[in-house]
């Protein structure tokens, strides 16, 4: 591939209070890939996503998105870059003071370019996409169940039609039916828009149904990166432990 990688991480080192989380971590994700990021609890997956988003600055190393260095001082460039990203936070991170409708409409309104009718249609569309009805738009985040929070957060992440979607444990807390819908939805979007997706997940079904590639985060670095089948053959305690008896299911 001679294209610019969508995400390029080089030599990332991160530590919290002297406790190393990432050491010399490198990863390249190309356009159109759906990467499942695996790793034990506390291995630094969320931290890695935060670094890709520019919310946390690594101690050392280089983060490039769409070929743009996140340390680039050009503010306008950085703003445009952010609009090409969508992030689903682990706990939703919905704006608690805004209704569901306004949460999704918020990033669209912030563009100051779209009229209200357009925004309303887009919000209804996103709500329908994640399987929520019109009536849910009026609810406040505190009135939602955990799974609904996830779905609204996904709808908000999709509002700006991002090219790169980062998902932190998207199907945790969804029932199997919903998480199957979710897999189909992301798959459809990926085919229609050529999305690039990086998702943290512990759910083998999600991984099997969606991921084109798998990255394994262990021992403070990306231990292995490759297509699903390639990863299955990796001989490392974490990988064998994770897939364990379920190896069949993935294949």
């Amino acid at each position: 591939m001679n294209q610019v990688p969508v995400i390029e991480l080089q030599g990332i080192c991160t530590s919290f209070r002297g406790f190393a989380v990432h050491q010399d971590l490198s990863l390249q994700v190309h356009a159109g890939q759906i990467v499942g990021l695996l790793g034990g609890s506390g291995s630094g997956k969320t931290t890695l996503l935060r670094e890709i988003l520019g919310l946390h600055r690594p101690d050392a190393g280089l983060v490039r998105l769409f070929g743009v260095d996140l340390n680039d001082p050009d503010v306008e460039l950085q703003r445009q870059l952010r609009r090409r990203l969508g992030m689903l936070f682990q706990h939703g991170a919905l704006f608690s003071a805004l209704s569901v409708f306004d949460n999704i409409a918020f990033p669209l309104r912030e563009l100051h370019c779209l009229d209200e009718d357009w925004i309303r249609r887009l919000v209804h569309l996103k709500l329908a996409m994640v399987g929520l009805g019109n009536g849910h738009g009026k609810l406040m985040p505190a009135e939602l169940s955990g799974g609904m929070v996830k779905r609204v957060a996904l709808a908000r992440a999709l509002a700006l039609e991002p090219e790169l979607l980062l998902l932190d444990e998207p199907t945790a807390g969804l029932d199997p039916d919903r998480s199957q819908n979710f897999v189909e939805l992301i798959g459809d979007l990926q085919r229609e828009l050529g999305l690039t997706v990086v998702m943290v997940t512990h759910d083998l079904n999600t991984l099997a149904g969606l991921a084109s590639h798998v990255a394994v985060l262990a021992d403070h670095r990306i231990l292995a990166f490759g297509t699903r089948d390639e990863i299955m053959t990796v001989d490392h305690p974490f990988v064998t432990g994770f897939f364990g008896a379920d190896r069949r299911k993935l294949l």
Partner: protein
Amino acid sequence: MSDIPRLRVESGTVVLSGPWTLAEMLPMLDLLRSGLEAVPASVRHWDLSAVSRLDSAAAVLLWRSWQGAWPASLAIGPLHRQVIARVAELPQEMPPPPVAFVHLPEFLGRQVLKALANLRGLITLFGQLLLDCAYLARYPGQIPWREFSANVYKAGALALPVTALVGFLIGVTISYLSALQLKTFGADVFIVNILGISIIRELGPVLVAVLVAGRSGSAMTAQIGVMRVTEEIDALSTMGISRSIRVVLPKIFGLTVAMPLLVLWTSSVALLGGMLAALLQLDLSLVYFLENLPRAVPVANLLIGLGKGVVFGFVIAVVACHFGLHVRPNTESLSANTTSAVVTAITTVILVDAVFAIFTRHVGVPQL
């Protein structure tokens, strides 16, 4: 990135090409919009086969320019057709959500009801407090001493510097301004009476109350409020720990104990400031001032000041805890309740101060 969304009309067909996505359309939105509007209604053939990406924002734009109906002929890839089909499924009309108009009587009525609800909440909290005290009297082992002392430290000890600074400056200012007046009448020595009575009886307690309401009252509301938002309060109750005994009670008693001490401290520092200003302005020696203070200011004034401190501290903490416990789980409510807590606390303090003034109008006034 090199490609941009394009629109051409050639021989009765509208040809779209390039990436039709929100990000790509944004820089040239007006151009595209006017381009779509300029398409004559007679043209019913659309060719979208050269579109590389089509997202739902673009689909909504197209659907609206088609006036909500599929064009007579449409060349489009199956994936992109699906995107537009999703938009087509939406209802044609998107009525704006009804805007609630609030009429004046309704607004006033709501405010009154809200005030009554708050009053009820305060009374409930007070009742709960009495029940808790009765409970703790029976089970003294459960008295939350640590939380209590932590609150005395936070609301009292940590407030010493700021109350001292403000008190000192106020003392200097009042002394200076009074000295200017007194000098013209040659009544210099009355500075002791003016400073003594005003600071010890009135200014000290009220000043501290305002500072503490802003400092500790808001902190209490915010803390309890965030504990509600993050469901920490619920976690406490599931462990069988009474939230009122563990969270509310230590705050209220902590502040009730800390306030009179703060009043004493602030009044002393304010008097010191006043004395220094009097020394510089009127050449009134510190020794003279201190010697005359007990004569000019009967000790009842000190007791009134301290009594006010106790009551004000109690009022501020009760109001703060009440508003904290009624935070709804969102940030807007948290900020609104913190504001209400401080405003209500200060207003109530001044009201109570007026009541004090009425009932103690014959007490502690020096007979000359």
